[in-house]
C-alpha cells in the first residue's frame, strides 16, 4: 500500500511529499489534513489521554515536517509517519511512567500528591462507551506496551503485518508472534472479565 487515498482525484502521498520537499508548504498542509485523524487515533490508543495525545500529535507533525527531506520513499509515507507517531507515543508513556514512579516515591516521602490525570480522563471516557468497549479497554490496558501497540496497529488501524513490521522496526514473524500472543491474552482477559460479571 503506497498511499491511503479517499478519492482518486486527490494527489497521491508521494506527489505531495515531493512538492513539500521542494518547498511548497501547502502540500505538507494537505498531508496534515489527510492524516490528522488517523494519527490522532494511533497516538490516542497508546497514550489514552486526550491532552497528551494532542501534544504528541503536534510533536509528530513538526518532526515529520523537519525531517521530510530524509524521507526517501522506501516505504509508504503513512508508514513513515506512523513510525514517528508510535515512537513518540511510546517514548511519552515511558517518560510518564518513570515520572509517575518518581512521583510515587516522592509521595512516600510526603513531598507532594499524585494526580493521575490519565485515570481521571479514562473514567470520563468510559461513560460514553458501550459495555463491550469498556471491557475491551480494560483488557487492552492489561497488555504490555508492545502487544498493545501491535493490536492497535493491526486490529484497530487495519495495517498489514509488513507495514507494522516496518513501523516497529522488527521482523514480520515478530509481529505475527506478538499478535498471536496478544489475541490469546485478550481472550483470556475478556473471558475473566465476563466470569467476574457473572459471579
Amino acid at each position, binding site marked *: 500500500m503506497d498511499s491511503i487515498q479517499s478519492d482518486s482525484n486527490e494527489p497521491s502521498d508521494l506527489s505531495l511529499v515531493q512538492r513539500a520537499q521542494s518547498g511548497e508548504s501547502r502540500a505538507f*498542509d494537505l498531508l496534515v*489534513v489527510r492524516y490528522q485523524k488517523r494519527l490522532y487515533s494511533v497516538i490516542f490508543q497508546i497514550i489514552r489521554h486526550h491532552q497528551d495525545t494532542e501534544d504528541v500529535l503536534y510533536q509528530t507533525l*513538526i518532526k515529520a515536517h523537519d525531517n521530510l527531506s530524509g524521507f526517501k520513499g522506501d516505504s509508504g509515507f503513512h508508514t513513515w509517519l506512523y513510525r514517528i507517531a508510535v515512537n513518540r507515543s511510546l517514548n511519552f508513556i515511558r517518560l510518564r511512567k518513570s515520572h509517575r514512579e518518581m512521583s510515587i516515591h516522592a509521595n512516600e516521602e510526603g513531598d507532594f500528591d499524585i494526580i493521575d490525570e490519565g485515570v481521571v480522563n479514562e473514567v470520563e471516557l468510559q461513560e460514553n462507551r458501550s459495555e*463491550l468497549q469498556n471491557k*475491551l479497554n480494560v483488557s487492552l490496558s492489561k497488555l504490555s506496551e508492545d502487544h498493545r501497540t501491535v*493490536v492497535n496497529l493491526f486490529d484497530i488501524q487495519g495495517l498489514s503485518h509488513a507495514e507494522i513490521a516496518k513501523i516497529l522496526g522488527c521482523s514480520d514473524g515478530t509481529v505475527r508472534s506478538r499478535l498471536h500472543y496478544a489475541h490469546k491474552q485478550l481472550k483470556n482477559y475478556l473471558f475473566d472479565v465476563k466470569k467476574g460479571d457473572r459471579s
Partner: protein
Amino acid sequence: MSMENMDKVQKALVDLRNEVPSDAYFSGVLSEFHSRQRSQQLVSKSFSFRLTEAFKDLWFFNPARLVQAGAFSIVVLFFTLNGLNQSWNSNSTSLVNWYRGEAVQLSSSLFPETYLTSNGVNSLGESSLARPVELAALSLAEISSERTQYVMNTTPAAYDSVVAF
C-alpha cells in the same frame, strides 16, 4: 468464547478507531500546528540570538581577532608538534640501539658462528662442549661495551656530580 463473541470483539476493536474528537476539533489542527511550529522556530532562533549576544562583547568575537588568534594557535601548535616529533625520534633511536645491543648479546652468547646441536656437536661436526663458555665470556665483554656505549651516547644516568659529595 464463541465465534459470535469473537466477531463482536473484532468489531469493537475496529470501533475503537473512531475514538477521536469531533470534526470541529480537527478543523483547528492545521492552524494550531502552524502556530506551534512558529513558536518552536522562535525558541530556537531566540536561543541562537542569546548565544550571539552573550559572546558579542567578548574580545575574540571580532572576526579579525579570531583570525589572528587562529594563526597564532597554528604557529604554536606547529612548533609544539615539531619539538615533540624530534623528541620522539631521539627516543626511538635509543630504543633501536638498546634493541640492537640485546640482539648482539643474544646472538654472540647463544648462537656463535658455529651453533651447537643438542648432543654437543656443532654444525661442522666438531665436539665443542667447552666453546660456549669461552664465547659467553667473550660476549660478556661485548655486552658491557655495548651497554656502556648506550649509556654514554644518550642522556646521563644521573645528574649527581663529584661536587655534590
